[in-house]
């Protein structure tokens, strides 16, 4: 019987069984951020242990970094992160350095996440880099200490699932729309216990950055990690990043990618096929990412639901200040956030800029763009995207996680409705009482212009411009 892509990478990194039956998996690269670094490094020294592979460890400040020009300079987490990095002599990326960015974004930008390799990051969105065929695991702080001390993770091997995405995405439908559609269909726990492989014609046709968005959202339907088999597009994507990625790595990639696929007779514990031809631009109406609808669709009526779903449905509607059966279109918004490890790459900013160009942000809307990395920011500026955003009334920020998790204090005001390109619409996540609607960069940009929830396509056609 053949092996899956996941098994190939897993087996190549298997070190040994531990006495409790867990498998020690070697971690090729390890990216730590400011939310966990202070606790983890302090715990390490408390245990009188040291960083086993400084050369494979990189520390970034992303979660608590102020992204405003004159924002609060240094958070407590940032200060202690700097101190522990100096004490432990590990590489550290300062929040205003040209290499700065969100962990999962600089991991691919700087060639730290590579096909066939393993990566760990103390963050549930670590599997973003699965888009390149890099097997990544998120972890907690104690697990992080374990990786620092051993350069391995002690894991129970997950089951495997393949999602075949068939058909063809329609013009104007992005990877984010597809992710929201998929989570809506499968529910927030469908991937629990699984390593997921995304496959099929839709994935094959999808650009690399879209694949990263798709992989990023895997945890939102419960998946432990995910992969996409590298192909010609993957290679050309790396080639375009050539300044950061050496010739040796490119050679390695060409060789490696020939082996990185699931064999035809490989067996998965679960397989799902989803036709994507009819997927529409999506937006969430509720308080978890499965509570989403097409932009033109009404929210379901509660009496169509099971008793358990019914309660959750009504609670979510209550928090969001919405009614069963209503359409979201025309609902006023006060804030728009374009950013996060889900949707702050160059292609996302271009997609938003296309909608924004020559238009003005509606009165009463605070709209801002937070590029995923300093490099993306510089590239966008070289293309003049910053000017498009600034002229239309958007704020243009430095890179960081910002309002995705609000851990840097960049949050909305109570009751505000925020259209956000991030990954979680949980109650109070973007500030106490803030009502988050997850959407694609195009939809978010269109909502900023219209001042209410709108379909980007109809806005561009001039049908809904206020």
């Amino acid at each position, binding site marked *: 019987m053949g092996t899956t892509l996941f098994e190939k990478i897993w087996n190549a990194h298997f*070190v*040994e069984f531990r*006495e*409790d039956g*867990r498998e020690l998996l*070697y971690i090729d690269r390890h990216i730590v951020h400011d*939310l966990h670094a*202070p*606790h983890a490094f302090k715990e390490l020294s408390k*245990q009188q*242990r040291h960083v086993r592979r400084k*050369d494979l460890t990189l520390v970034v400040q992303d*979660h*608590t970094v102020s992204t405003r020009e004159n924002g609060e300079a240094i958070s*407590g*987490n940032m200060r*202690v992160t700097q101190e522990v990095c100096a004490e432990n002599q590990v590489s550290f990326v300062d929040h205003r350095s040209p290499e700065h960015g969100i962990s999962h974004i600089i991991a691919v930008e*700087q*060639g*730290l996440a*590579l096909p066939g*390799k393993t990566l760990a990051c*103390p*963050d*549930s969105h670590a599997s973003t880099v699965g888009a390149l065929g890099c097997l990544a695991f*998120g*972890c*907690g*702080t*104690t*697990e992080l200490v*374990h990786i620092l*001390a*051993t*350069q*391995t993770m*002690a894991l129970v091997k997950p089951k495997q699932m393949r999602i075949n995405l068939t058909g063809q995405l329609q013009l104007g439908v992005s990877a984010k729309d597809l992710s929201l559609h998929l989570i809506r269909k499968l529910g927030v*726990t469908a991937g*629990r*216990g699984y390593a997921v492989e995304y496959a099929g014609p839709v994935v094959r046709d999808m650009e690399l950055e879209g694949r990263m968005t798709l992989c990023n959202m895997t945890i939102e339907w*419960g998946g*432990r990690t995910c992969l996409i088999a590298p192909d010609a597009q993957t290679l050309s994507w790396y080639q375009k990043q050539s300044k950061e990625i*050496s010739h*040796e*790595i490119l050679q*390695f990639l060409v060789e490696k990618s020939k082996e990185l696929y699931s064999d035809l007779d490989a067996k998965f514990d679960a397989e799902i096929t989803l036709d994507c031809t009819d997927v529409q631009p999506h937006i969430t109406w509720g308080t*978890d990412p499965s509570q989403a609808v097409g932009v033109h669709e009404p929210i379901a009526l509660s009496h169509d639901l099971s008793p*358990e779903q019914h309660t*959750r449905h009504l609670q979510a509607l209550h928090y969001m200040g919405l009614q069963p059966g209503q359409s979201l279109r025309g609902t006023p918004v006060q804030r728009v956030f374009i950013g996060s490890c889900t949707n702050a790459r160059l292609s996302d900013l271009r997609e938003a800029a296309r909608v924004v160009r020559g238009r003005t942000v509606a009165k009463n809307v605070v709209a801002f763009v937070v590029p995923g990395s300093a490099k993306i920011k510089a590239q966008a500026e070289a293309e003049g995207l910053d000017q498009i955003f600034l002229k239309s009334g958007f704020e243009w920020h430095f890179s960081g996680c910002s309002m995705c*998790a*609000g*851990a*840097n*204090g960049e949050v909305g005001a*109570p009751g505000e409705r925020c259209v956000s390109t991030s990954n*979680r619409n*949980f*109650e*109070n996540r973007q500030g*106490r009482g803030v009502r988050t609607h997850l959407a694609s960069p195009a939809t978010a940009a269109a909502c900023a212009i219209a001042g209410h929830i709108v379909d980007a396509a109809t806005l561009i056609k001039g049908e809904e411009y206020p």
Partner: protein
Amino acid sequence: MTPFIQVQGAAIPMPMDDVNTDQIIPSKYLKDLDADLAEGFLAFQRKKPDGGVNANFVLERPQFKSAPILVVGTNFGCGSSREHAVWAMQAFGIRCVIGHQLAEFFIENCLKNGVLPIELETNQHHLLMQKVVQADGYLPVCIDLLNCEIRGPGDLLHHFEIDTQQRRMLLEGLDEISMSLKKLHAIERWEDVNQAQLRSSFHK
């Protein structure tokens, strides 16, 4: 790690599904290294926007103030992998969480902190939740990891399943890193064999 052998006390009924870690510990408690995590535990449910105490919320009721057991719905602890969620729960005094299903990252983080995560079948979970709601904290529940039993409230008795090795780790309060480092020679061997490949992954 503090061993977990047996814990007895009030069980807090919280029959909510999909409680995520942003709710369990809001992000404002993450950016302050000296934050009071016990205060942060489910802070937005416990405190009104004006800062006043929401006396109706279960954690604010006097009989649950030092309760060691939390009984939750499905998919508790979903979302962000932040371990602060478990620390906050622990700081509040909770040593055991019982749910229908718990989120994967959350289970891992519990096990690494000496908190016992228990997952029950639908019917068992339903019955326990019902009895815990009725008991309202006035009848004790005993969680016995040696015998894998939940005793109470009243004469209710449930057996629970837990992986043998996870059970041992908790009972003995074992240090995982020491356990892994027993395999140090294997880690070094792996590095020797794969060193060339590793070197090729350095970009600088």
